[in-house]
């Protein structure tokens, strides 16, 4: 018995070695082959171009674009108090008054702004007025700098405003005892100086603050008025990235919303190369198909999985290397790389499945552009709200922004953010592999037909149905997250009905499309009994998988009103209601999946009708449960 086991282990290990060896060979060959498509001169030009872009990019990230450097000329004496202002400003080039040349009519000169020896400032020529405005700004900045360097800060800044960003109370839910301030409040400390700037008197009345709720929140033990971001059991959104507001205090002029512009810009650098790499990757997959080159690989001992893995690895490795290089350049940590890899994988996976479905290079271009736009938007837009709302965490780019801001990321947040990307990438590769075969690769089939083929290829008996329903959960989750993100800013009157129907439709689609594929490709007998059986299996599988979406609880997403509409309400504390609410979705999923399966067994049109009915039943259920819980 043990000999047998040992033999099995050995043969298993040998098989694994074989798989790895073949995959590596194909990967090496892919690198070798694709480098052969570019001649040396072009390669050198490309490398030079990349280096230039990299250096310029880093320099721009570090120092800005510098478009206005020495844009204007200023004539001023070295003795003038404005001389230093002009010298320190990047926008001005300074010349001495003795070098000033003005035309006789006084209309033009070799300087835009002139400071006379008596201290009068004037402007000359067509750019004069604009230069004068720029100089005024430069004076302001100069003064700000000087004031900030002042030893006596109280003297420099007689009025200080402390900013504390508060969580928004969305949807009007009550917070028990906390969060009475629903707007962004500024807690002002009106300080009067005693000339030394040493002591502060807190009076809480400071009428010169002008705005905000005044509050004694300074070091004299003043109490807060419930402005803490962690409301006890309220529907307040937990604090995400609030620590990112680096300067919570400053001059009134420096007050700005918590927009992590620089980190966001740097994080975006991670996504840019992905858009280029997928073009090359999509082409290599397409070449295998359109030029029928892949046929000979398919008859080799390498399996389609090994071929795809081998062809994908070099591109993934390139993206990881680029992510590491960018991380080093922008000062990120390992988290940035760990967050970039799932994005890269999804870019590649979506491109792979797109290249497997496209019928021509023209279609491939459309597919890759769609993927670029969609995934870039999906990753970038939520990251804009890194410091505002937990919705931002639907994008792993948010993790990069947080990493660049020096914030810590919890494991739950990392999994929440990257899990759907990784799972979606896995499903995309799985579906693409389903059509990585002669019959689909080289045939000019319509995209929906290939999608059905891909799904049908994954059906091996009845047990595949619940498994596929479970595997589709990441897509469902991602699609629902996207719907929430898109409808986040829409007035609730419109957003809620839409999200009810959308969320239901997404789930019903995921529960039924593979069942339809099975019937359409004669994998299952088209009988009433089989349709009911498949519906039950799909419903149960989906129910089990759906429980995984409870990861959304970790980051407090369901506490948003639109989140509740998409993911369901928080469960009641009543045990009976709890039990009913736990099993009610099972009944729902089974019933609606059976409806769709019955339609699917009768053909395309019947499936469409059944799908609509199932969606409406599902949406009505969601509405009912929320009404019940409320």
């Amino acid at each position, binding site marked *: 018995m043990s000999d047998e086991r040992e033999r099995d282990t050995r043969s298993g290990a040998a098989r694994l070695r074989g798989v790895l060896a073949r995959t590596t*060979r194909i990967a090496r*060959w892919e690198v070798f082959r694709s480098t052969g498509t570019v001649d040396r001169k072009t390669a050198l030009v490309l490398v030079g171009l990349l280096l230039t872009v990299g250096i310029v990019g880093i320099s721009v990230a570090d120092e800005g674009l510098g478009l206005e450097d020495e844009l204007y000329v200023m004539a001023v004496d070295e003795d003038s108090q404005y001389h230093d202002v002009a010298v320190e400003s990047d926008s001005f080039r300074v010349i001495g008054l003795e070098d000033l040349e003005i035309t006789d009519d006084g209309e033009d000169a070799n300087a835009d702004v002139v400071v006379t020896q008596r201290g009068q400032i004037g402007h000359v020529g067509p750019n004069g007025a604009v230069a004068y405005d720029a100089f005024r700004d430069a004076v302001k900045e100069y003064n700000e700098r000087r004031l900030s360097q002042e030893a006596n800060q109280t003297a420099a800044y007689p009025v200080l405003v402390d900013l504390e960003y508060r969580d928004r109370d969305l949807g009007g839910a009550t917070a028990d005892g906390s969060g009475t301030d629903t707007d962004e409040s500024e807690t002002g400390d009106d300080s009067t100086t005693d000339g030394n700037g040493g002591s502060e008197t807190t009076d809480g009345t400071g009428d010169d603050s002008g705005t905000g709720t005044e509050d004694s929140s300074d070091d004299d033990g003043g109490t807060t008025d419930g402005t803490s971001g962690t409301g006890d059991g309220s529907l307040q959104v937990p604090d995400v990235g609030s620590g990112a507001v680096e300067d919570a205090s400053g001059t009134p002029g420096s007050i700005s919303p918590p927009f992590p512009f620089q980190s966001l810009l740097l994080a975006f650098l991670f996504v840019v190369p992905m858009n280029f790499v997928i073009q090359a990757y999509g082409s290599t997959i397409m070449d295998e198909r359109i030029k*029928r*080159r892949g046929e000979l690989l398919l*008859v*080799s001992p390498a*399996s389609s999985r090994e071929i795809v893995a081998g062809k994908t690895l070099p591109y993934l490795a390139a993206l990881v290397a680029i992510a590491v290089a960018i991380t080093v350049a922008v000062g990120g940590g390992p988290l940035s790389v760990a967050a970039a890899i799932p994005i890269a994988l999804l870019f590649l996976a979506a491109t792979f499945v797109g290249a497997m479905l496209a019928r021509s290079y023209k279609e491939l271009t459309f597919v890759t552009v769609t993927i670029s736009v969609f995934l870039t938007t999906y990753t970038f837009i939520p990251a804009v709200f890194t410091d505002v709302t937990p919705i931002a965490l639907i994008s792993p780019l948010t993790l990069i922004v947080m990493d660049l801001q020096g914030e810590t990321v919890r494991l739950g947040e990392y999994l929440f953010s990257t899990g759907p990307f990784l799972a979606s990438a896995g499903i995309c590769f799985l579906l693409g592999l389903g059509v990585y075969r002669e*019959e689909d690769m080289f045939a000019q089939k319509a995209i929906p037909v290939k999608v059905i083929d891909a799904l049908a290829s994954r059906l091996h008996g009845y047990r595949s149905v619940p498994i596929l329903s479970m595997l589709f959960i990441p897509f469902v989750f991602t699609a629902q997250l996207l719907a929430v993100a898109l409808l986040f800013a829409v007035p609730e009157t419109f957003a809620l009905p839409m999200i009810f129907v959308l969320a239901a439709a997404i789930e019903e689609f995921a529960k039924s499309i593979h069942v339809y594929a099975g019937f359409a490709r004669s994998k299952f007998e088209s009988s009433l009994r089989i349709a009911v059986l498949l519906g039950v299996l799909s419903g149960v599988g989906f129910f089990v998988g759906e429980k995984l979406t409870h990861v959304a609880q970790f980051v407090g997403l369901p506490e948003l009103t639109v989140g509740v509409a998409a993911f369901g309400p928080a469960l009641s504390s009543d045990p009976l209601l709890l039990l009913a609410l736990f099993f009610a979705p099972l009944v729902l999923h089974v019933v609606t999946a059976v409806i769709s399966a019955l339609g699917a067994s009768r053909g395309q049109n019947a499936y469409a009708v059944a799908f609509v009915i199932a969606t409406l039943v599902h949406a009505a259920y969601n509405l009912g449960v929320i009404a019940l819980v409320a």
Partner: protein
Amino acid sequence: MAILEVDDLRKEYGGFTAVDGSSFAIERGEVFGVVGPNGAGKTTTLKMLAGLIEPTAGTAVVAGHTPGDPEMARRLGFLPEESPLYEEMTATDYLEFFADLYDVPRTVARDRIDRTLERLDLEHRDRRLGNMSKGMKRKVAIARALVNDPDVLIFDEPASGLDPLTTNYIIEFTQELSDEGKTIVFSAHNLFHVESVCDRIIIMNDGRIVARGTIDAIRKAHGGTEYHVYATVDAGNGAPIDDEFRHVVADMAGVESVRETVERDGGRITDIQTETPTLEDIFLEVASESRENSESRKNNEGRNGAERDGRDGDESGRSDSDEDTAEART
């Protein structure tokens, strides 16, 4: 013992049946021809043998292995009708990559590649494939099919679209491979090539095998050699004997019978010619008969369709018809 066995192989695409229950066996060292008109199911059959297409039903066993088994892939060399190459690679790099993929040790692979390219008279092996002529590319494709020293070779239209010189070269090379003991499944539209290299053939039409056996046996089954007996007969009225009649008979007994009749009537035999149908003649005849049978069957099915369950009836109808065809032709 058969090195390749096919049993009731079937391939359906939606409602279309591309291959309908093919069964045959190929002995080791045999050159086996697969012929038929376009759309007959030849290429689909070959691709199922190569493991490229998954059969809807039936089995194919090559050297004891089934398609999808990596070991079967190692024992098989496949030359598809079109063999697009990685044009950015040189012939040597291309062949070495495939040798590597088939687990051929590097030194063995290099030696084998050198010898094969030499036999194929392929020069400029370090030239990029994209810069090679069509004939040279085809030779590289053949070399690739041989890089793993397979037991069974599947050649689908090996000389398609090539000039006569290269075509002859490839046909001769195929014969050489056969002499070396390779088992070859050979498909071509040029029936002269099939006739010159194949030991046995199957003729396919509409996804079915409509004839099988050695070329001589098939020829015999389809009329075989014909005897054309030319005779003149005295009309008996003093008219000049200038009318010539032709009698077509199947064998020498028929010839004797004609001779007796002619001589009894006072005539004489002027000439006897033998006419042997070419494979092309047989092919055209078989294809035409098959088409008529197919249309007749479809009409019958249409008439009977309302009376029986569509799917079951369809299958049983095909099965019966297939048996009839096999009996009549084999």
